[in-house]
């Protein structure tokens, strides 16, 4: 028995973490955000070389062939470094959908491009999470019509689009009749957007007649967003402890005040079990199907709540400096806020958890 990471996983964690610390620190995220860049090409290329973009793609298609726990480990690093890169949809949800439900032609075309970091993919699935009355996609005669909101990893080359019967399609960004609009969010390190379809030719995923595939894709996205929050919140806590150890007020470091110590202790106490939860949820996704969906829901909701608490509390520990742009602490704050709401906020996801257990 080993509840934890393998040596290979620790290596993956370290190699991604080291690259990000050295080459994609806060300054790079800031530059991306301020310039409203579409794509941090340098970061994408380097991470592709480390295997990040092809992480869960089969080796046959140029990927590394790893699993959800590996994706969660990487997501944690990305969240911890507020890395400006498309990952949840581009490297996890869309490859997963293709591998589970794509035709051989779809896989052969897109997976190698995604694995190599030569193309990126977005996920337009929010209607399946929570429908907005003016956003609905209908499929008819090989084309899509309607509107998709809150597309994850927007500004992509290809989109995975779920229609109103929970069937999935691929649509290229350059397709005729497709209009794409950026939706600026608080989190400037990842893009979301809106897609409008006017009879756009779409390529359906043949295996997606089974609605469980879309549910799996959403579960995977939720685990990855939750893992991103784990990394971001851990980083905020670490920053808070470090800052409190340096900042002097009233003639002593503020880390020696019981109030500050207890704020940090509460953060640690709530955050530490989240690490085991992420590990288990990711592991269950691949290995314990009967627990997978419920665990994914609870993990998404619980990390949303703990993340919110840590984001606020760590900012408070930093005092006024936490509120400024100088330290950039708010990049983590906003990243956690983004992860909380995307693919379903805590209340919504908990309702799903209750439904899964037939408590509703």
């Amino acid at each position: 028995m080993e509840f934890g990471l393998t040596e290979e996983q620790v290596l993956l964690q370290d190699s991604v973490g080291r690259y990000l610390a050295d080459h994609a620190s806060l300054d790079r995220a800031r530059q991306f955000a301020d310039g409203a860049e579409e794509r941090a090409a340098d970061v994408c290329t380097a991470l592709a070389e480390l295997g990040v973009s092809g992480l869960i793609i089969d080796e046959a298609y140029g990927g590394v062939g790893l699993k959800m726990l590996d994706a969660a480990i990487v997501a944690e690093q990305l969240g911890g470094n507020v890395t400006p890169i498309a990952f949840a949809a581009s490297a996890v949800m869309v490859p997963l959908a293709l591998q589970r439900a794509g035709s051989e032609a779809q896989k052969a075309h897109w997976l190698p491009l995604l694995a190599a970091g030569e193309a990126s993919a977005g996920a337009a699935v929010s209607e399946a999470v929570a429908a907005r009355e003016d956003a609905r996609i209908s499929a008819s005669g090989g084309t899509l019509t309607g509107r998709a909101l809150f597309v994850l990893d927007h500004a992509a080359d290809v989109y995975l689009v779920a229609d109103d019967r929970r069937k999935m399609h691929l649509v290229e960004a350059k397709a005729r009749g497709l209009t794409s609009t950026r939706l600026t969010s608080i989190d400037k390190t990842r893009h979301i957007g809106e897609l409008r379809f006017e009879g756009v030719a779409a390529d359906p995923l043949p295996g997606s007649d089974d609605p469980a595939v879309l549910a799996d894709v959403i579960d995977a996205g939720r685990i990855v967003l939750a893992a991103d929050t784990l990394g971001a919140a851990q980083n905020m806590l670490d920053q808070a402890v470090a800052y409190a150890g340096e900042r002097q007020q009233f003639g002593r470091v503020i880390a020696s005040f019981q109030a500050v110590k207890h704020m940090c202790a509460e953060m640690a106490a709530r955050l530490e079990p989240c690490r085991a939860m992420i590990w288990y949820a990711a592991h269950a996704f691949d290995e314990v199907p009967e627990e997978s969906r419920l665990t994914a829901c609870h993990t998404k909701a619980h990390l949303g709540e703990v993340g919110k608490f840590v984001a606020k509390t760590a900012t408070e520990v930093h005092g006024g400096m936490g509120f400024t742009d100088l330290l950039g602490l708010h990049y983590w704050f906003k990243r956690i806020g983004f992860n909380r709401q995307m693919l379903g906020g805590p209340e919504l996801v908990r309702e799903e958890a209750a439904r899964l257990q037939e408590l509703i």
Partner: protein
Amino acid sequence: MDLSYGGEYEAFRGEVRDFIADHASQAPKGNGMRSKPVLDWQALLIEKGYTARTIPREYGGHGAEPDILKSRIIAEEFANAQVSNGLGGQGIQMLVPTLLEIGTEEQKKRFIGPTLRGEIVWCQGYSEPNAGSDLASLTTSAVLDGDEWVVNGQKIWTSTAKQADWIFCLVRTEPEAPKHKGISFLLFSMDTPGIEVRPLKTMTGDSTFNEVFFTDVRVPKQQIVGSRGEGWFVANSILRHERGMLGDPNATFSRLNALIELMQQETVDSRRVIDNPVFRDRLMQIQGEVMAMRFNDMRILSAKLNNKDASLAGMIVKLQGTELRHRLEGLAIDALGELGLLYEDSPLLRGQGAWQSQYMFYLGLIIGGGTSQIQKNIISERGLGMPREPKPQQV
């Protein structure tokens, strides 16, 4: 229990309403300074006694007797009508009362009138990067050189520094004295050579605040308020006044109503958000707390009026009010789902993005103006009579 203001006051309320009805068209919109409509409106309000009401005429005010209820009625009526009730800012709210209390006659004559009329705009130089909660440890120095103070150091959290003509500033003049007794309160022009203002961007993305750097800034000796070394006591009595204003339950009440409207309008999965019982219950919890804070506010007003003690009721307002407001804005974000993430000029933005910006701004206010930790120290020590923390042993 008597919640009526009484006949005299209801008559006064009528006068205020009439004035507003007659003159609202002249009132400026927005927060501009120095424009002619703004200055004219300010002059009219002073004349009528709707601003600078109790400040003596000889210093440019209206010269009325203090009357808390009349002040409250004026505030209520202008707020209800959404008409500007005159210029605010730290000069009028913080410096003028200070000068009235301990300024020299010459300082009063020179500064109060122009400040009230909007001719001099002030900024405040208190906090420093290493003196936040522990304000008394500030290190910006002022050394007397002939007839001038020479100021060096840095301030932070200075709002309106870009617009201000003058600054009122805490500086250390007695480096040998105990830290609370070495501080003086200086006034000087922002045009003095050696001042650099750098905007300070915050997490909201705005730059409401600035950093201000002083390099050999020379200030005439007599531009000190109070005596040398008295600056801490000068500043502190007013700080308390400022803290009372943070977390105003009436502003929160307006936001609550906007939130109720929002939750009735937005739909998710074809259901109005207000019809989601979990969000509705959170809304009702917040409504109950807002209600409690509004009644608490009435109690404080009444206590002031009747010279009763409600000091604990006042002491908790900043702590409770800012946390409550932060939670209220946070509920709106949650209730909006993914829509709640949108910001700045995004399409589909709700409420001009204010739910997010206020959520963050109120986190800033939980920290600023005395962090929640400092507030709790104050409540436990001054409110509940618990002992101060023992001083640490010198290591």
